[in-house]
């Protein structure tokens, strides 16, 4: 089936207020910027952005616009604040967190990765050693009432924390090459969270720098098989500064 759509607008037409969207990217690298810009244009509100390692810090202009438009309800991430405390203080996003207007919830990065992997693999929850002996034994949320304890278990004499799979409504994916049937290939470290998020979401929407016909990409070169992908849109290769504040 041909999964290619003519426009970003068409690809996100059913992204409604209140949904959870997975946003891949590791700081500036591998972020679906064109889809984020389409989301800003569409004006969808009450969004939960499920991230992994600060993609919105790497797409700071988009973050600023989404914040100022009042589109974000919650962000889930391992690295959600600007690196520089002084720059963070001056940023509308961090100000909104301080004011309680945006909810920020933090998990260790490996736990974020596994939450998506588990969701895509039909595993409802998993025990991890990460975070034992820290505040991560509770939900880490800026809103105090949300900091409830996580379940723990001793297995073979060692303590583990129970973490739940995270299934977003949508995933916005950025890839180097897609074929029309949704097989994807990423470039180098831009792969990061893209593959696991594509497997986790109910609906996976891909922006691709290149689109090829089925068969033009060798089966051995596919990183994400098309079974996980619903829609593909061609975008220009993004231009951005490789930096975060």
């Amino acid at each position, binding site marked *: 089936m041909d999964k290619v759509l003519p426009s970003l607008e068409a690809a996100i037409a059913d992204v409604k207020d209140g949904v959870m969207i997975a946003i891949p990217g*590791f700081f500036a690298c591998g972020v679906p910027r064109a889809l984020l810009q389409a989301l800003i244009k569409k004006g969808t509100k009450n969004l939960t952005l499920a991230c992994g390692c600060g993609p919105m810090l790497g797409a700071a202009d988009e973050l600023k616009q989404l914040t100022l438009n009042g589109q974000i309800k919650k962000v889930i991430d391992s690295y959600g604040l600007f690196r520089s405390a002084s720059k963070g203080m001056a940023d509308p996003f961090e100000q909104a*967190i301080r004011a309680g207007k945006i909810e920020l919830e*933090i998990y*260790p990065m490996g736990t974020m990765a596994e939450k998506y992997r588990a969701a895509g693999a039909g595993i409802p929850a998993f025990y991890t050693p990460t975070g034992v002996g820290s505040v991560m034994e509770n939900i880490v949320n800026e809103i105090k009432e949300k900091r409830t304890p996580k379940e723990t278990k001793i297995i073979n004499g060692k303590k583990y924390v129970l973490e739940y799979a995270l299934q977003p409504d949508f995933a916005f994916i950025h890839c180097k090459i897609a074929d029309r049937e949704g097989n994807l290939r990423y470039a180098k470290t831009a792969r990061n969270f893209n593959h696991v998020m594509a497997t986790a979401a109910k609906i996976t929407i891909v922006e691709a720098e290149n689109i090829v016909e089925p068969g033009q990409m060798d089966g051995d070169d596919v990183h994400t098989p098309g079974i996980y992908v619903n829609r593909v849109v061609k975008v220009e290769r993004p231009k951005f500064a490789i930096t975060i504040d």
Partner: protein
Amino acid sequence: MSPQKIEGLPREMIALRVSREIQDGMYVNLGIGIPTLVSNWIEGKDVYLQAEIGMLKTGALADGDDVDQDLINASCQAVCALPGSSYFDIAESFAMIRGGHIDVAVMGALQINVRGDYAGWSNPSRGLFVGNVGGSMDLCAGAKKLYIAMEHTTKDGELKIVNELSYPATAEGRVSMLFTDLAVIEITPKGMVLKEVMAGLTPKDVQSVTEPKLIIDPKCKEMEL
């Protein structure tokens, strides 16, 4: 009141001392700050640097025509690949971290205590409960050895090696060696053992800026750089 601050070695020299512990064939993850500088001192060694983003065998920082926006390290800096570099997705990256495949992780710290608990992920002075944890807790959980490289005290001379952490812990009881601008300290079940001191200092000097009582190794020597 803070004790009298002692001027120590520059950050690059702490990194150099840590690099002496990195052996051929090791898979190593370096955290942000002083740990990143360790990479400047392992040239010529057969060492594989892992970047959480999903890369093994990370090369030098890239500039000019070598910059590729699809190739960065975990500190968001453009890097080069090396012959034998590999890329993988984030779940794979953290599987190798939690799964015990990384020989050494070197991290920075805000505080460390006598039991090898350390705090590094959240600075309460920011006035927020949440902080940037990144992959630090996963590295603590899974690396075979966890080293801390940091300045012995803060810029203002406040103690960072303390009896009890006042900042939120990254992990409990996981640090085995501590490298500072003044000393090398091993964390053992009996306590903190002073192994090396900076040239020109005595163990007593180091103790004066260290809250827990140090055990002086009988073979305690001058730090070799």
